């Protein structure tokens, strides 16, 4: 197991270097001179243009820029935002808990509903339940997040008035961000109703962000279960006279979960992309919305640091998934 882990960790180094190059190159192939974009309709004199170029360091040779970027990263310096003039890492750390909180709820929502739904669909294969469920999953999977979010807002907040439209908590509540997780901070604040308000604000974004992973997980669980249920050992277990819930819940599900765990890991990467749209729609102050703003402003330091940090998170999640995978499936550890 330790060797397996070391192997995985060792692979991270070249991947990391590769991502720094990609992130660095990506923002530079985006069309649009950041200095000209700052100047806008007014235009900028050649002298001032040169001055701003120098100030941002964009006049230096490209490899030099890359080197100072890379050496900065290893010293924990991710640069300073061109627009806000704040250190990028500080903004990231302020905003990331919001994304993490939303992603946590969304993935929990997807897993807690997706796995049982997939299991039931597999067990009752071909029934109206199975067909409705898989049809719904297909719709959920195909629905653009932006549109789904807006529809949910218009229906549940606008027409029914059940949920708040956007934001993380009612404006009535105000307390310091101790952890950055609104639900936890609300509990810590001790203010009456704050926690409930934070939870109510989470409902629609969670559903919006969780729908695609939910659909994917449900479908994956269903097909994995179907495969396992046809296996000999399941037949044996049934023949032994084990109760159906034991056969399905203990024997079949444990093996069916192996591909599902991989899927869940991959969904984290997908969710980072989904978070960008979900956060924009729900005015959720996380890193997704932050990145979108930075791209439109050609704020290079923010975009490249954001890309890198998100990639690191996805890599970390994949590592965790690999480890989990080893735990669930002992066969993998020896290969």
């Amino acid at each position, binding site marked *: 197991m330790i060797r397996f882990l070391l192997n995985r960790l060792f692979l991270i180094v070249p991947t990391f270097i590769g991502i720094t190059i990609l992130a660095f190159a990506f923002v530079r192939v985006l069309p649009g001179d950041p200095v000209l974009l700052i100047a806008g*309709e007014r235009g*900028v004199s050649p002298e001032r243009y040169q001055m701003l170029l120098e*100030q941002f360091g964009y006049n230096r040779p490209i490899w030099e820029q890359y080197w100072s970027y890379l050496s900065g990263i290893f010293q924990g310096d991710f640069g300073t935002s061109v627009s*806000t*003039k704040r250190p990028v890492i500080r903004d990231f750390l302020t905003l990331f808990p919001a994304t993490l909180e939303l992603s946590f709820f969304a993935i929990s929502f997807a897993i807690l509903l997706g796995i049982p739904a997939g299991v039931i669909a597999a067990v009752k294969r071909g029934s109206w339940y199975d067909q409705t469920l898989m049809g719904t999953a297909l719709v959920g999977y195909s629905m653009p997040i932006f549109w789904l979010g807006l529809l949910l807002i218009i229906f549940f907040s*606008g027409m029914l008035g059940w949920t708040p*439209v956007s*934001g993380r908590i009612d*404006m009535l509540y105000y307390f310091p961000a101790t952890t950055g997780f609104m639900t936890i901070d609300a509990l810590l604040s001790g203010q009456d109703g704050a926690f409930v308000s934070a939870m109510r604000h989470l409902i629609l974004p969670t559903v919006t962000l969780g729908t695609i992973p939910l659909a994917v997980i449900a479908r994956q669980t269903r097909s994995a279960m179907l495969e396992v249920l046809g296996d000999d050992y399941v037949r044996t277990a049934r023949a032994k006279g084990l109760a159906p819930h034991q056969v399905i819940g203990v024997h079949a599900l444990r093996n069916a979960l192996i591909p599902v765990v991989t899927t869940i890991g991959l969904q984290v990467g997908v969710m980072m992309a989904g978070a960008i749209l979900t956060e924009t729609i729900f005015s959720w102050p*996380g890193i997704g919305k932050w990145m979108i703003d930075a791209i439109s402003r050609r704020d290079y330091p923010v975009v490249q640091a954001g890309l890198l940090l998100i990639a690191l998170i996805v890599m970390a999640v994949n590592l965790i998934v690999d480890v989990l995978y080893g735990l669930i499936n002992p066969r993998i550890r020896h290969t």
Partner: protein
Amino acid sequence: MKLMKTLLAATAVLALAAGAAQAKTLVYCSEGSPEGFDPAPYTAGTTFDASSRPIYNRLVQFTKGSSDTEPGLAESYDVSEDGLEYTFHLRQGVKFHSSDTFTPTRDFNADDVLFSFERQWKSDHPWNAYTAGISWEYFNSMSMGELLSSIEKVDDYTVKFTLTRPEAPFIANMAMDFASIMSAEYAAQLEAAGTMDLLNQAPIGTGPFEFVNYQQDAAIRYSSFDDYWGGVQPLDDLVFAITTDPAVRMQKLQAGECHVMPYPNPADLDSIRADSSLQLMEQEGLNVGYLAYNTTMAPFDNVNVRKALNMAVDKQAIVDAVFEGNATAAINPIPPTIWSYNTSIVDDEYNPEAAKAMLAEAGVENLSMKVWAMPVSRPYNPDARRMAELIQADYAAIGVTAEVVSMEWGEYLSQSSLPDRDGAVLLGWTGDNGDPDNFLAVLLGCDAVGSANRAQWCNEEFDALIQKAKITSDKAERTALYEEAQVVFKREAPWLTIAHSVVFMPMSTKVTGYVMDPKGTHAFDGVDLAE
């Protein structure tokens, strides 16, 4: 005894709740996050709405709802005969805000004025580069560095600005956001503590609202400043709920989660009008959308060709299709909300037949040209591609072939400025300070050829008028000069003036006292909330 205690506690809670219910909190669904709370390094209106408008004041200020200026932190000012010296007489007894870490020991005085400008002006000033990558965009783009010769403290309540050349728009500049007055005492405290960047995060000003807290990308909180020199505000608290998506802002407004929102989707205007709990304010924006010919290139160097092309375009159709009716067809290069707007000018008539005849008379046949369409949406032009296509069709009707071209925005801005540019360019402008000079000189002056003057138009008569107006401090005289300049502009037709867009502000009917600002900022002093 225990019961008694519980009862007492319950009463206390009730009393608190009642107090809270009485506090008037206005929630404004703002469209984006401020870049910082020191307005001077930034240029975005969103930043000014959150910083300079609620928190700070300036020596002179814009009269609410107009582009005129009135006394602010300076009670009055004198201009020397030669127009070079401006002496400001400061208001006495003006208090600065206080915070957890700062308690002012003195009132506003001349030191604060010197600090506020010198930090932007002098490159050796300790605050000139107080955070990494800071630059003073507006101070520079308004050419304040070259304009200022000295700033002197005559006494505690008198400051004298000496200019290098007479420049009447200087007063309008002093009302701009970058000219906000900071506390020199607070700055000194931050400098001593080595926490200079707090100036940009925990602002202290003299304005109607005190900064309370900013939750990044989520909300900004302010409370009314009890010692505000302009009087206590009707509101107790002001909250900006940052909501980027216009459709979501609209839902929040309808759900009562906020009271005021800027920049509605044009498609939502009808449902806002139909909602009895909402009111919709509107005003022509401080902007102009135009099509600039390259007046140095044949055949566009011929005024009759330009006139003919102007007469070929159906502006009303553009207003209806591109702006969905939410604009007025533009006649002059400045919008009607700016003083000196010349109401006597008659627009070129839409007449394709006459246009065709004029072209033939000018000896232009089978003209084919480029029409540049911006790749971005702006208040003065929400959909340039569509606009270009309408112009293309109108041109086709008089036998002119137009090719629509577009490119990335940064490229567009620089390429369109080149003196040998091929074709006519769609662009526009949103004013900075409500002074006519800020449109006429910036966009059409001879100095701006090769940069913001996209028509590459240098007309001696026009330029003499605007240069004279620039150095004249008497406003009536300036008005007459600008009115005449607009006559020359219309006669020479370097642009097709297209439209001034209309700006909308939907708000709850509970909101009273809100005044729209023609410059497009959003300010909440004097605003009240009915129960």
